[in-house]
């Protein structure tokens, strides 16, 4: 088996699956391109996470990671929850296969995104300002991160060293995409014959 017993147990019986319609904060990370996408919903009461629910599209590791994060963070203060790292989650699960450590281990990021959403709302930051800020970050991230696994890139590399996808800059939008795909993952433009045959 490629996964630890603990991973399989969380995959088979994930805790806290679902949606909170009256969530105080919502966080979303990943995209279907890289294979994994997580949505975290939190309720906050007296500075503690009183309820957490998640939904995950992804492999066994991604589902187990989400479940483990929700369990680790339940009832914790926001500060304690923020201190949960992706590494700690993997450790609690008895380790993850090396190739899944980056792509599927995004649970803590999704939880932190939900907490940030809560704090932004609590601080009275308007939705529009928040969305604009998020947009800015996203654009920035597009330049520095692999579009498939969100792993940080230095720029100029021909392959992502996290998920090993061959990268090329799309001629149409200038963003990184998989060199071996017929079309750009960001803008859908057809990749040039130079890229396709290489």
């Amino acid at each position: 088996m490629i996964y630890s017993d603990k991973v399989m147990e969380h995959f088979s019986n994930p805790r806290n699956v679902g949606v909170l319609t009256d969530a105080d904060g919502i966080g979303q990370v990943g995209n279907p391109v890289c294979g994994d996408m997580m949505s975290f919903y939190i309720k906050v009461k007296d500075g503690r996470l009183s309820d957490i629910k998640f939904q995950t599209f992804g492999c066994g590791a991604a589902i187990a990671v989400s479940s483990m994060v929700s369990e680790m963070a339940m009832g914790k203060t926001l500060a304690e929850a923020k201190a949960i790292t992706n590494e700690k989650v993997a450790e609690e699960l008895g380790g993850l296969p090396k190739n899944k450590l980056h792509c599927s281990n995004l649970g803590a990021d999704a939880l932190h995104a939900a907490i940030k959403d809560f704090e932004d709302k609590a601080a009275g930051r308007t939705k529009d300002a928040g969305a604009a800020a998020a947009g800015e970050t996203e654009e920035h991230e597009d330049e520095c991160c692999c579009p498939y696994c969100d792993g940080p890139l230095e720029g100029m590399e021909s392959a992502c060293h996290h998920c090993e996808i061959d990268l090329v800059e799309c001629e149409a939008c200038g963003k990184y995409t998989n060199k071996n795909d017929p079309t750009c993952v960001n803008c859908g433009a057809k990749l040039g014959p130079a890229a396709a045959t290489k």
Partner: protein
Amino acid sequence: MKRVYLDHIAATPLAPGVLEAMLPFFGERFGNAQSLHSDGQAAAEAVEEARASVARLVNASPAEIIFTSSGSEANNLAVKGLAQAQRARGNRIVISAVEHPSVLNAAKSLEKLGFAVTLIPVDGTATVDPQAVARALTKDTVLVSVMLANAEVGTIEPVAEIAKIAKAGGALVHTDAIAAAGNIPVDVRALGVDALSLAGDQFSGPKGAAALFLRKGVRPLPLIDGGVQESGRRAGTENVPAVVGLGKAADLALAGLAAWEEKARTLRDRLLDELPARVPRVRVSGDRARRLPHQASFLVEFVEGEAMLLSLDMKGIAVSSGSACSSKSLKASHVLLAMGIDHATAQGSIVFSLIETTTGEDIDAVLEAFPPIIDRLRKMSPLYTEFLKENAR
């Protein structure tokens, strides 16, 4: 729990009689087929018998069969060996976008040696248009390689038509028939190809036993230089037990081919018809009619392939997936992407492949286990929640 193994494109158990045929060559008949003494000649005779058996399977002459250690080696020998041997005539090769990595990466490796590679796109069923091959042909094209059948989506390619066009343009034609040989009738003369790869582990022969058909007069640059084994086209002491096993499996496959096709198709059609009927937003991938008889592949929306694979495995059912997460490199299947399928849908790839011993009960087990698994995974999926919301609007 009884295992229901439906991943026979990955591995097959030996057919009855194959192991028994192989065993003597590990023991009392251990001779080197190149040795002139009678111990060596006993091994050599067995190798030649196996060569005749493999030749019969694809309607070739025994002298046109080269044994290799794997299907990948056969594909490499065909693509690299034939392209390089033709170098003086030109430096372009034409392959389809849905070839196996052992063809795609062999082509990539040729690029580093100065060859130009043209990738022929496919349609939504993964079918190569012979006219697209015609348009891609140039004077300097020395080799066209298009697979006979795609294991991942089951589609059978129009190789005979492609070969006709390519030959008229002066190129040699190779077809990777690894998923096809032993499972559908394969006739190198009717196909009109110069080279064809096949592998024993696709029809209940041993792993590590494969072959390349090379039409008489067609010579590759060898990948392995050395002695005179395989007429100097593939050096290295013959793996006699594996070759004997391959020959025996070829005999059995040829004798049972018509019955197997009929039986496989009946069971497979139950999957192709009933799975999409039982679970909404599930569709068959690949061509429905021009299809391997023992292969049923699907795209399941809103769920990821590895999660399906693990869930079925826990119910005792072994399958395969082309999702990014289920591959070691975490790359989405190049076959599905070439078919124009978006990344999210390609993640929901699942592949069932049958064998002689597959029963109706095995298919029942899949049909019963599948719907609740998909239901459970969809309830966890943010993509499904989004879809339900949009539908409610």
